[in-house]
């Protein structure tokens, strides 16, 4: 059985590297592509790759939510919005040079910031993130619980926020 386990881990590693490379490539493509609808599609691939990582970790619930919310919900709305804009087929013009430099510096700063955090905290991941299947019931109870480390209040705040968004959208749409 040990032989089999080794193979299993090897397969998981191979899948992980494939997914990681795909996520990296499509992230870069999503930013550099000149067609806005292609950017959206590459972003979709990135989100799907992330979902793949979740399933590799055994977080099925997170996987399903990632697919349903991001790939099935947000991306559909993105593509819908892009289709409704004037000329989705046109190439996006390049930005001015000073802006490009500013954007480059910002993104480098972002990479440095994230890299710093990841570098100093990478060891904690092994103790915090356990590749284990989360029961939906547990997640649901935690979301709806009022005790410590439970999330009823944030949950309700988010729902109020969404309600406010919807009311606002209706107000904007109704104004003649």
């Amino acid at each position, binding site marked *: 059985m040990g*032989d*089999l386990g*080794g*193979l*299993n881990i090897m*397969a*998981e590693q191979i899948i992980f590297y494939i997914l990681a490379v795909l996520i990296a490539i499509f992230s870069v493509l999503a930013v550099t592509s000149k*067609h806005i*609808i*292609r950017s959206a*599609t590459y972003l*979709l691939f990135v989100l799907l790759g992330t979902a793949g990582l979740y399933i590799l970790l*055994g977080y*099925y*619930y997170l*996987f*399903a*939510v990632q*697919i*349903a919310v991001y*790939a*099935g*919900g947000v*991306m*559909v709305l993105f*593509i*819908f919005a892009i*289709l*409704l804009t004037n000329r*989705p*087929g046109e190439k996006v013009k390049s930005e001015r040079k000073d802006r490009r430099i500013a954007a480059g510096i910002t993104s480098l700063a972002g990479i440095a910031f994230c890299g710093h955090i990841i570098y100093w905290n990478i060891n904690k991941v092994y103790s915090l993130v356990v*590749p284990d*299947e989360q*029961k*939906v*019931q547990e997640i649901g109870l935690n979301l709806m619980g009022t005790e410590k480390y439970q999330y009823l209040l944030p949950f309700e705040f988010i729902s109020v926020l969404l309600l406010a968004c919807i009311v606002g959208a209706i107000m904007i749409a109704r104004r003649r």
Partner: protein
Amino acid sequence: MLLEFSQPLEYTGLANWFDTTLGSWSLPVKLILVAVALLAAYAIIAMILIYVERKITAFFQARIGPNRVGKYGILQSVADVIKILLKEIIHINNVDKFLFFAAPFFMVVASMLTFGAIPFGKALQAVDFNIGVLYVTAVSSLGIIGVLLAGWSSNNKYSMIGAMRSGAQFVSYELSAGFALMTIVVLTGTMSFSEMIAKQEFCWNIFNGHISSIIAFVIYLISGHAETNRGPFDLPEAESELTAGYHTEYSGLQFGFFYLAEYLNMFIIASIATTVFLGGWMPIQIHGFDGFNQVMWYIPSYAWFFGKTGVLIFLSLWVRWSFPRLRIDQLLNLEWKYLLPINLVNILVMVILVIAGLTLTDLFPILAS
């Protein structure tokens, strides 16, 4: 965790044989076999469905239907497959080639991913997530991206309008389909298909939650039917206005992908309804009638599954050939003014039924398995 994917082979005892003869390589071999079996089932079920649909359609219209290729035209869809494989894939100028060619794969991959989670019989399930219902609703929502991309990248206003309609329709109806499934999740307290089926041994969910379940069942059938762009809801491809909607520009195998996905989606909707509402592969069992139950078990579980699914598919065809096509505003009215409010009330009713202990299994404890 990858081991879970090989459950179907354990059913037949093949898995043990592979383990003993192939040693450490048995896992990849099993995975590949499961994948091949699923893909084959995918194609074969689609072919059978196309034949059955054409026959039943013909009967509804007082015709005979395909009857030239083979006895009763049984080989008609085989011939169609050969034809569609041999057809030229036409390259269209001024389209976004990458998106144009990627779009059909979204459709097929989405329906294949859903297909993997369907329990076809006792232990005949490729993937048994503990969030089966959520997984199915999540993954099936990927298909709409294929439709939208196909419509946009065809560089054709008919395709574009068809895709937009399809998108609006799908996003709306997915909502009530999800809510209808959630009603049953409230009833059973689990999202896993296998647990759901196990709980339905003596009392199907559709009877267990009586009023609420039946309403949820009807709503799920309607919205599932609408999600597959068929029947009275096929206005994304209304041929009189939009030629063929989002797949106007596709030909050959690419069109075949859309076609395949459409038929498989019909099957998937029916099989999920079977699993969630009608007890899945579980034979009809009556508490106390042990002899009868034993006899029912002699009929293989996949026969039960395909039988129940077949009834639902027939229902879908019946609806398809009974009603005229809806207008887009009527379609959205149906969803947002009728199905969704009824659904929200229904889910509340179900919560009350469960909490107050008014479900059939609560009232008659012998029905609980």
